[in-house]
């Protein structure tokens, strides 16, 4: 038998394939298309302290090779999640991370304190890198000092696995990742979407009311592959590689440069059973190459020094 399992903090995932936040809904829809016993897990849609109405439409636009999205973290807040959604996903057989999108340090502390009293999930992915929130003040990822204040002593609030999700658009991300490592975070989810835009030529207007939107999908894979390699070189804690993964080759490339696991976002929107398909594909590849454990692949890149 081949061993596809990977460990991040206290969490052991059966396979390194995870559904990315915002593209996995609350897992309920996803469970109809994937056998949860055969995938690593998924990350929930971003949860904010209070209910958050999303951005104006259009929120999504297909462009050559990818998707521009400006959803705006639409969700019903942490209380609604605890009452209506957690009960439904508690018994899902795969790993579940809750993505938290704080607008202040208090938000973050309150959310973790509310949630940590409950069971049925494996940890938190703190999202400080949403490109669709125009209020600059709370764009932590772009400012090292703000991020430090936000993340200081968060570790002490929970025993559960703690991940930090970062954006590729700010060089500060690498410093912030090192700080999170020193604060005891268990892993870095890298990257969130890239900042792009689109123009409606007839109307001479930006397609999105916020002008900018998050760009994702196969078109950005070479960018994320390099970013993830750079992040693997910057921190010792596990890095979860994200960005344009839709095929087995993509998955292998990210593992080879050193990602401990990967997240698939846009890929799930196109093919909702892709998480199971990639896990099975990886298993077949390892059998055909007589690779006993996925750890033999992770970071197996021959460095040219």
């Amino acid at each position: 038998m081949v061993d596809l399992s990977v460990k991040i903090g206290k969490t052991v995932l059966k396979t390194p394939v995870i559904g990315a936040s915002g593209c996995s809904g609350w897992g309920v829809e996803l469970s109809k298309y994937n056998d949860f016993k055969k995938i690593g897990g998924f990350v929930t849609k971003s949860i904010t302290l209070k209910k958050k109405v999303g951005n104006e439409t259009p929120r999504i636009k297909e462009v050559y090779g990818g998707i521009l999205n400006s959803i705006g973290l639409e969700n019903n807040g942490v209380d609604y999640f605890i009452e209506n959604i957690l009960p439904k996903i508690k018994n899902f057989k795969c790993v579940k991370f809750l993505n938290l999108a704080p607008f202040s340090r208090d938000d973050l502390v309150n959310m973790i304190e509310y949630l940590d009293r409950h069971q049925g999930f494996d940890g938190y992915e703190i999202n400080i890198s949403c490109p669709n929130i125009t209020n600059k003040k709370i764009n932590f990822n772009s400012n090292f000092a703000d991020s430090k204040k936000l993340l200081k002593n968060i570790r002490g609030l929970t025993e559960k696995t703690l991940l930090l999700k970062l954006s590729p658009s700010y060089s500060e991300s690498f410093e912030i990742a090192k700080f999170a490592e020193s604060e005891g975070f268990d892993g870095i989810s890298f990257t969130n979407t890239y900042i792009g835009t689109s123009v409606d030529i007839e109307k001479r207007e930006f397609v999105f009311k916020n002008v900018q939107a998050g760009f994702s999908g196969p078109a950005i894979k070479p960018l994320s592959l390099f970013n993830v390699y750079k992040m693997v070189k910057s921190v010792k804690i596990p890095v979860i590689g994200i960005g344009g993964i839709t095929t087995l080759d993509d998955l292998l490339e990210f593992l080879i440069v050193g990602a401990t696991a990967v997240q698939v976002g846009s890929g799930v929107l196109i093919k909702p059973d892709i998480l199971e398909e990639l896990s099975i594909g990886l298993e077949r590849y390892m059998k055909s190459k007589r690779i006993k454990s996925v750890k033999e692949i992770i970071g197996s890149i021959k460095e040219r020094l």
Partner: protein
Amino acid sequence: MIEKVLNKIFLTENVFVLEISKSFKENILPGQFGSIKTDLKDKILRRPFTIVNDGNRSLTFLIKIVGDSTENISQLKKGDHVDILYPLGKGFEKDIDYRKTLFVGGGIGLAAIIPFLKGKKCYNLIFGDREGEYKNVLKYFSLKGLYCSEKNGKIKGYPTDFLNRYDFDTVIGCGPKEMLKSIKKYCVKNEKRFYAIYEEIMGCGIGLCNGCAVKMEDGDFVKLCTEGPILDGNRIIYG
């Protein structure tokens, strides 16, 4: 889900009927749709199409060519494979009093109305056909109703100009946003119920992405793909 093309008939220059195999046994309710992924490598998202007829061994779609994906689908031949997720969306389960209900269709929006009229003898239908292309489509589905068109055709004008000719308490309508907007105005003023079969660009089509949000009057957003596509037309804020 991979289905097979059983039949394809062009009714007009750019509107065609597509019939594909149906492997799932579930029966399809009016309003439900399928979401097709073409093999165009640069097109990422699936495209949604109303299931016009559930022939329990086959599914029928009525598709108008408006862009690359619909163009690609129009070139499928018998036996070709179709990558489709279905049935999607919430089906219409309320009973309909056909004597008191007015169906209003605009252009390709007619596709969403057809499932309601299957096997029905008498119903009230107003159909707006801007460029007068849909005559064969009505004939093919043997639909009868008040046929109006801006350009040619006996009765000139928009569908909404003829609402007052009918005695009804409910409208079920599908078509361009301007048409739905003026139906809403009429129904709110005259206290009529209005079910709108709405169209908005979709991402996943299965409730994962929040990309298909439709803004309602209380400022809230509703997911078109899982809570729709049939919504309360009197509360939609038409973008």
